[in-house]
């Protein structure tokens, strides 16, 4: 129910939000599209000017790094979101039970959520380094070998980055799913228990359907977030070795920060935005978000 008195009041109240978002979200997004149609390289200003679709032609047909980084982005997002969801769901179910030490356990397992990507990198560099890291101490007690260096070895660098990102990513799902678990009515479970439904049946027939929308929404938000997030990989692997761990946004950041090719960087940005938007719409459609089962 809404109550309107003065017709101007709501506009006054929402004006700051609108102005801020128009000025610093909508306008920049528009200008990215504009720049993507320009030659705009700070280091080669004599070539600047209208380019038409030239940047996109180069991107689609002449830039193997675009496809490679897009492919890695997809792999990174899928692996991270699936693993974070599975661990996060398990964790939420565990800390939703009542047991001694629950409050402190919750606080502790959720805590990496507050840690930044750069700090995560710092912590895992301390853990992974071969001279004073954890593998050295494990080797001391006979587990593994002394020369284990996950970040230096091309065959393990992906797994090493995945584990570090999991460490701070799982709590996001655990927090959101726990919040939703707490809205399941206890009566449903009791009724199911009376009917003799096993624990596993109750999970699949009551808990999971209840969590459906929260899972769809949180996986989508997380997928977009993981796709866009650059802090961890930028500092942990720098996108290497040999561009093996370069995501699309990391590639854009490299273009913008290091080579100052703003026109081509904007074309890459536009492409990423289109990919994300189509993915999001398709995901919501296919998963029947909001549909009551």
């Amino acid at each position, binding site marked *: 129910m809404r*109550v*309107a008195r003065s017709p101007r*009041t*709501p*506009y006054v*109240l*929402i004006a*700051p*939000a*609108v102005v*801020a*978002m128009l000025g*610093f*979200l*909508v*306008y*920049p997004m528009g200008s*990215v599209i504009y*720049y993507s149609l320009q030659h705009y390289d700070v280091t080669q200003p004599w070539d600047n000017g209208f380019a038409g679709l030239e940047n996109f032609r180069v991107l689609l047909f002449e830039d193997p790094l675009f496809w490679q980084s897009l492919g890695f982005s997809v792999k990174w997002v899928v692996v991270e979101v699936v693993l974070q969801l599975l*661990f996060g769901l*398990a*964790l939420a179910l*565990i800390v939703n*039970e009542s*047991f001694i030490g629950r409050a402190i*356990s*919750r606080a*502790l*397992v959720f805590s990496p*959520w*507050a*840690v*930044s*990507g*750069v*700090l995560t990198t*710092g912590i895992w*560099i*301390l*853990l992974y*380094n071969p001279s004073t890291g*954890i593998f050295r101490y494990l080797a001391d007690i006979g587990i593994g070998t002394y020369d284990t260096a996950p970040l230096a070895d091309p065959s393990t660098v992906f797994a090493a980055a995945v584990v570090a990102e999991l460490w701070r990513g799982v709590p996001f799902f655990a*927090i959101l799913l*726990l919040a*939703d678990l707490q809205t399941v009515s206890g009566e449903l479970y*009791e009724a199911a228990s009376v009917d003799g439904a096993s*624990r596993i049946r109750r999970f699949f027939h009551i808990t999971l359907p209840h969590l459906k*929308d929260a899972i769809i929404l949180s996986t989508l*938000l997380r997928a*977009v977030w993981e796709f*866009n997030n*650059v*802090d961890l990989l*930028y*500092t942990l692997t720098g996108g290497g070795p040999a561009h093996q761990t370069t995501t699309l946004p990391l590639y*854009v950041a490299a273009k*913008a920060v290091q080579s100052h090719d703003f026109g081509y960087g*904007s074309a890459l940005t536009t492409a*990423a935005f289109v990919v*994300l938007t189509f993915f999001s719409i398709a995901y919501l459609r296919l998963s029947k978000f909001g549909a009551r089962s």
Partner: protein
Amino acid sequence: MNRVGRWQIYVPLGLYLLFTLVPFYWMVVFAFRPRGSNSLLPWPITFEHFDHVWNGMGFSIFFQNSLLVGVVSLISTTVIALAGGYALARYDFRGRQAFLVGMLCTQFIPGAMMLIPLFEIFRTLGLVNSLWALVIAETVFQLPLSLILISGFVKNVPVELEQAAWVDGCSRLRGFFVVVLPLLRPALVAVGSFAFIHSWNNFLFALMFVNEQDKFTLPVGLAFTIGEFSADFGALAAGGVVAAVPVVLVFAVIQRYLVQGLSAGAVKG
């Protein structure tokens, strides 16, 4: 509802706690043990690494900058989202629907990819190398989620409560402060702490918009520690502790409200 066995809780929980806490512990040990020590206990305890990063490497300035950006972003995000969220929940006005749709769309705008146009804007405004650029960027990126959360919460406050206050002679504004605001506490805690933690942790904006060392924030300072002194693990760990303590403290205080706030507000919209 029959109970699960204790071990079914404690074994997986214990394993997961190990995975969560060992990395934190590793950082703390490195930060407090003397240079060259291989002990797995931070003993004999030393503050040499903290002295080095705080006084020698400029972390005292990075800390102040981060704190400033974090607090100002927290205030501006909360105030703007509170006003807008109330309007979205309580008024039906032209353009409301369009605004809601537009806000959802902004969720797909890749933050990292706004670097180029935002840099251009801040250059035009003369805000490159200014902490204000970081405050503005942080606030704007936090606004959509904050507006959604707060308007969801305001909707859950029965409008009759407010009307009762008006009948008693309260103005709409006074009614808001007396009746609605106290009930929004979980939402304000969630929104404010999100804003603070996000801006405290943001790396890429700070890296791009600020390049004078006395304007660095902690993540940028930390990233340079990772890059330049990769052998000085003591300094890296001590810098990490400095960056971690404030957010972990904030988080420890708010995490209870966070789960409450989300289960009451956002999920049901």
